[in-house]
C-alpha cells in the first residue's frame, strides 16, 4: 500500500529511488586529528566545495560555504573548543559543544539573519568533529533520495550529484539553505513534511514530486509510471536548456547577433563562458574598488584582469573603466560632497581630478593584455563630448608608454549621456567601438531618477525616445564602420532584445541568467518582423504601448 505525504514544493522536477537516510554524525572518542588540524582540513574541504559551486555558476550558494570556511578557522570557536579539550574533553565533543554554545548565542540575538547562521555554525562544528575522529564524509552507494530532518548545504553540495536523485526533508521551508541549493543544483526537493522520517525510513522506494510538493512512499505501478513520466519531462526541459547554451543568438531566419556577458568580478568569468557567452560585453571593474579605504593597486588589478582575459582567450573582453562617483563615499576618490552625485564628478570625469587613479587601472589592463597576449577592449563611461574622447585617448597613450610591448588596446565609449547621442556621428569617427548603456540613457534622457518608484513609467527603456536615440547611435556607428553593442538591461529583456535586433544592434550583452529567455524570444521572430516592431515601437506614444506591441508579436510568433 502506498502512502502520500504532503509538504512544501521546494525545487521542481520528479524522481523515483530508494530512500537514503542522512543522520548528522555523532561525536566519537577516537582522535585521528588534533583540533587545529581537523579545523584546517574542514576549512579546506569547505573552500573546495565553494569553489566547485562557483565554477558551476552558483555564486550565491558558493558564498554560504565560503562563510562556513571562515567559521571553521575562527578563533572564537577554536579557543572555546581548546578550553574544553584542556579540561579533559574529547576533541570531537569539545568542538560540537563549542559550536552549540556559539549557535545558541546567535539564535538568542533575536535576529533572523543571524539565526540562520546558527545552523551553519553547528554544521561546521560537526564537520570538524567528523574529521577529528577520522570518519568519512557521507557517500551514496547507489542512486537515492536523501531523507533527513534537515540536510546542511555543505552535505548537499558534497553528495555525489549523479546519485542524488531527490531530497525530502521533515523540517525546512522554501527559503531554507537546503531548498536554495537544491534549486541551484536542479535536484527535485520537497521540504516541511511532517512525519517523514517515521514513515519513510523503512520504505523500499520513495517518489518525490517537487512541483506538487508531494512524497509517495512505496508507490504502486500507476504512481511509479506517473512519476517517471514527470521525471522524463523535467529531464527534457533540462536538456533543452543545456542545448540552448550552445546555440547562437539568432532570429528565426538566421540573422546572428553576438551574445556578450555582463560581469562584475573575475570569478564570474568562467560561469559566463560556460553559459555560452561569446565575450564579455561589460566588465564592471568598479566592483573591485568598492568597500575599501584604498584603491586596489596595479598588481592586484592586473591579476584580476589577467584571470578574465585568460578565461575568454580570443573572445573580446570589454573593460569599463571605473564607474564611480561621490555617492560611494570612498575615501580615495577625488570628490567632495556633491548635491547630486549622479550629475557630478563621476566615471571618466574622475580622471580630470586624479589622472593617476585611471592611469593605474589602464596600466593594469595593458599588463594583463601583455601577459595573456590578447587585445583588451577599454571603454570610457559617462562620455559627454569629444573632449572626453580626447581624454580617453591621452590616458590610454600615457599608460601604453609605461607598458612596452603590450598589444594595443581597442578604445571605445559608453553612450549613456544624451549629448553623446546628439554627437554620435562625430564621436563614432574617433573610437573603435561603442556600447549603449540603456539604464542611464533612459534616466538622463527622461530626467527620471531610476530609484524613484513614482516614476516607473519613465524608467522603462522601451520608451520611444530611447528607441529612437539607439537608432541614431546605430546609424552613426554604421557610417563610421565600427561595432555597436547594447549592455544595459534592455538587451537582457526578451521584448527589448527583439526591438534592438530590429534596430540593427550587433551585440547584446547581459547577465548570463538572461541568455536563455533572450535566445528563445529572438528565435521566434524573423529579422523583418523585428524591424517592423522597432519602427512601430519608435513611434508608440509611450513605453507601455511599445511593450504591448512587442508582447503581441512575441505571443503571436510563439503560437505559430
Amino acid at each position, binding site marked *: 500500500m502506498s502512502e502520500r505525504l504532503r509538504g512544501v514544493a521546494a525545487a521542481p522536477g520528479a524522481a523515483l529511488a530508494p530512500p537514503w537516510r542522512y543522520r548528522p554524525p555523532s561525536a566519537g572518542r577516537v582522535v585521528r586529528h588534533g583540533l587545529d588540524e581537523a579545523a584546517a582540513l574542514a576549512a579546506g574541504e569547505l573552500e573546495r566545495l565553494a569553489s566547485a559551486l562557483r565554477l558551476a555558476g552558483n555564486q550565491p550558494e558558493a558564498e554560504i560555504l565560503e562563510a562556513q570556511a*571562515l567559521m571553521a578557522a*575562527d*578563533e572564537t570557536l577554536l579557543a572555546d573548543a581548546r578550553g574544553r579539550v584542556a579540561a579533559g574533553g574529547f576533541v570531537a565533543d569539545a568542538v560540537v559543544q563549542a559550536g552549540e554554545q*556559539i549557535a545558541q548565542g546567535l539564535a538568542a540575538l533575536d535576529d533572523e*539573519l543571524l539565526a540562520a547562521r546558527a545552523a551553519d555554525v553547528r554544521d561546521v562544528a560537526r564537520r570538524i568533529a567528523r574529521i577529528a575522529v577520522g570518519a568519512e564524509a557521507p557517500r551514496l552507494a547507489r542512486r537515492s533520495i536523501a531523507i533527513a530532518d534537515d540536510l546542511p548545504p555543505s552535505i548537499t553540495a558534497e553528495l555525489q550529484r549523479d546519485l542524488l536523485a531527490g531530497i525530502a526533508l521533515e523540517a525546512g521551508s522554501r527559503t531554507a539553505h537546503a531548498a536554495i541549493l537544491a534549486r541551484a543544483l536542479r535536484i527535485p526537493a520537497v521540504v516541511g513534511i511532517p512525519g517523514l522520517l517515521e514513515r519513510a525510513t523503512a520504505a523500499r522506494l520513495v517518489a518525490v514530486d517537487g512541483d506538487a510538493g508531494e512524497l509517495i512512499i512505496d508507490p504502486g505501478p500507476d504512481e511509479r509510471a506517473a512519476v517517471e513520466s514527470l521525471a522524463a519531462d523535467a529531464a527534457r526541459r533540462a536538456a533543452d536548456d543545456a542545448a540552448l547554451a550552445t546555440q547562437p543568438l539568432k532570429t528565426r531566419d538566421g540573422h546572428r547577433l553576438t551574445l556578450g556577458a555582463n560581469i562584475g568580478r573575475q570569478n564570474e568569468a568562467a560561469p559566463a563562458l560556460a553559459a555560452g557567452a561569446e565575450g564579455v560585453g561589460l566588465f564592471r571593474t*568598479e566592483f573591485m574598488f568598492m*568597500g575599501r*579605504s584604498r584603491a586596489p593597486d596595479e598588481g592586484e588589478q592586473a591579476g584580476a584582469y589577467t584571470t578574465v582575459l585568460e578565461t575568454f582567450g580570443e573572445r573580446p573582453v570589454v573593460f569599463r573603466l571605473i564607474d564611480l562617483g561621490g555617492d560611494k563615499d570612498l575615501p580615495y576618490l577625488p570628490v567632495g560632497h556633491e548635491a547630486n552625485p549622479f550629475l557630478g564628478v563621476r566615471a571618466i570625469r574622475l580622471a580630470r581630478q586624479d589622472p593617476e587613479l585611471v592611469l593605474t587601472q589602464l596600466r593594469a589592463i595593458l599588463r594583463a593584455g601583455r601577459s595573456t597576449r590578447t587585445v583588451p577592449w577599454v571603454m570610457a563611461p559617462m562620455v559627454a563630448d569629444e573632449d572626453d574622447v580626447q581624454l580617453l585617448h591621452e590616458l590610454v597613450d600615457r599608460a601604453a608608454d609605461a607598458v612596452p610591448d603590450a598589444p594595443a588596446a581597442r578604445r571605445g565609449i559608453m553612450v549613456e549621456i544624451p549629448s553623446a547621442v546628439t554627437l554620435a556621428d562625430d564621436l563614432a569617427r574617433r573610437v573603435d567601438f561603442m556600447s549603449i548603456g540603456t539604464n542611464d540613457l533612459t534616466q538622463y534622457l527622461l530626467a527620471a531618477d531610476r530609484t524613484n518608484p513614482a516614476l516607473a513609467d519613465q524608467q522603462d527603456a522601451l520608451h520611444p525616445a530611447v528607441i529612437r536615440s539607439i537608432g541614431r547611435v546605430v546609424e552613426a556607428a554604421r557610417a563610421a564602420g565600427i561595432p555597436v553593442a547594447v549592455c544595459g538591461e534592455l538587451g537582457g529583456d526578451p521584448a527589448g532584445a527583439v526591438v534592438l535586433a530590429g534596430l540593427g544592434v550587433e551585440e547584446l550583452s547581459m547577465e548570463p541568467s538572461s541568455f536563455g529567455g533572450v535566445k528563445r524570444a529572438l528565435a521566434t521572430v524573423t529579422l523583418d518582423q523585428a524591424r517592423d516592431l522597432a519602427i512601430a515601437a519608435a513611434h508608440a506614444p509611450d513605453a507601455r504601448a511599445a511593450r504591448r506591441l512587442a508582447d503581441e508579436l512575441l505571443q503571436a510568433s510563439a503560437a505559430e
Partner: protein
Amino acid sequence: MPQVDLPITNPSGLHARPAATFVKAAATFACDLRVTNLTRDATRSASAKSVLGVMGLGVSAGHIVRLHAEGADAEEALAELAALVAAGLGEVSGRAVDDATRA
C-alpha cells in the same frame, strides 16, 4: 589605549559578508583589536579578528560600535577599519546597488 566609535551604516550590519570583510581586514594587522556593540551591550566585547565573535555582537544597521586597538600598528588599524566601515564594508546600499549594476 586608542579607540574609535563608529556608526554602522551598511544595510545588513555586521552580518555575513560585511562581517567577513571587516574581519579579514582586521586580521591583516598585528595589534590586538576588540569590538564592542555600544547600542546593544557595552559590557561585551569580541575580537575583531573572529567572524563568529563579531557576528555574536548582533550589530545591525544604525548601531554604534567601539573599536579598541593595542599594539604597534594600532593607530593605522583604527584608521583603516574606520574608513572601511564608512565605505559600507563592500555592501552597497539600496541606491548604490542600483548604481553598481548600472550600464
